[in-house]
């Protein structure tokens, strides 16, 4: 019997520890697994390496982890969202490393890891400082850079509904990075608003099939 639902954060976070590499879904606060981030904060783990579009946003979740000095590095496209003085401060002090990846390349690199692609060529960043050190190549007269896949030990994702097989739906633009991150980690942990019975999600409407999901934790939306 398959039942991916877990009932407490200890079970949701089993295996996470100091130095963990983790993808965190969300674009700003939309789709960010805030309660999972706070449970990580509570457990005191340090030296975390985070892959996320932003370096947190606002007051909650990943922003708290960074403020508390728990994050060593963020791989992201845009670290300085609104109210992100905590990022500027930590970065200026040398306490936080930032690796900047163009947003579409970030997302495609994550998908590539999940899809078993060993690398891909994109025009994005050609001729810019972000292409430095990358292999460059010309196809049909157009220049491309080679980008490697991007994996992590964990993916922490926020979704709307799940069933015990781990099938997921999302809400509006909170979908963002969730579906690709869920494919690209050794362990995918999903914070959902509600777990529903098997078969209650229309098979045509499943956005992330359960094959990509390891653990589901229900946290009632606030």
């Amino acid at each position, binding site marked *: 019997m398959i039942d991916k639902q877990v009932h407490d954060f200890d079970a949701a976070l089993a295996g996470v520890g100091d130095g963990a590499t983790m993808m965190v879904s969300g*674009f*700003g*606060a*939309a*789709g960010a697994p805030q309660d999972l981030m706070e449970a990580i904060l509570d457990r005191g783990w340090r030296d975390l390496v985070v892959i996320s*579009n932003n370096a947190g*946003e606002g007051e909650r979740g990943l922003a708290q982890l960074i403020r508390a000095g728990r994050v060593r590095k963020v791989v*992201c*496209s*845009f*670290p*300085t*969202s*609104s109210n992100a003085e905590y*990022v*500027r401060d930590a*970065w*200026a002090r040398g306490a936080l490393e*930032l690796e*900047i990846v*163009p*947003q*579409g*390349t970030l*997302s*495609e690199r*994550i*998908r590539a890891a999940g899809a078993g692609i060993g690398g891909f060529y*994109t*025009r*994005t*960043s*050609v*001729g*810019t*400082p*972000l292409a430095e050190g990358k292999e460059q190549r010309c196809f049909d007269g157009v220049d491309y850079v080679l980008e490697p896949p991007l994996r992590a030990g964990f993916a922490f994702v926020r979704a709307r509904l799940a069933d015990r097989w781990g099938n997921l739906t*999302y*809400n*509006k*633009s*909170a*979908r*963002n*990075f*969730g*579906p*690709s991150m869920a494919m690209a980690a050794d362990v995918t942990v999903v914070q959902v608003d509600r777990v529903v019975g098997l078969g209650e999600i229309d098979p045509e409407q499943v*956005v992330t099939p359960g094959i990509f999901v390891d653990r589901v934790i229900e946290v009632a939306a606030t």
Partner: protein
Amino acid sequence: MTAAKLTRAQVAWRIAQDIPDGAVVNLGIGAPVMVADYLPADREIVIHSENGILGMGPTPPAGEEDPDLINAGKQPVTLLAGGSYFNHTDSFAMIRGGHLDCCVLGAFQVAQNGDLANWSTGDNARPPGVGGAMDLAVGAKRVLVMTDHCTRDGSPKLLEVCTYPLTGRGVVDRVYTDLAVIDIADGRFVVREMVAGLDADGLEALTGAPLDFADGCGVLSAAIG
């Protein structure tokens, strides 16, 4: 006579007039978002937001904001009938795959060969951040730039060569400034419209590169105040 410099809203209005019926367009974070307010009512234009929205609608009334429905600038928005949601990877497949008819981006600098610099001033005292600008710059069928003609201290933003780190190489098709509408063609700036009260020498003095002037170069004005 002083040049009748356009306000930012007027530049947004002017850009909106150039977006054809049926186009799919991405409006960059910041001033370009204003273009949405001036899209002609008789055209149906689909706005794309890189965080997974097609058919983005206006700001919701106060109290009806949904934190899960935001634009690329993370402001609350709405969805029009016919709109759809999709994931980030699919959203950038649209961008990179050449499916957007145009995008409107801000700029720090634009070079006469179409190079765009809009993400970094090379200031190493500030954390870097690029967002989706590099993907939009290479991906959209037409890249329109919305910018003041000069910086606040009067330096030209239209240059022979960008001095800031690039966003994209040879990507810009047209620049809309508070003074002129300028195409990029064969490695040259070609002025198509210019505000009243300015002549060719006047505009060239405010520009960091030589200018060509299109036959029948028109007057840049806006139908809004």
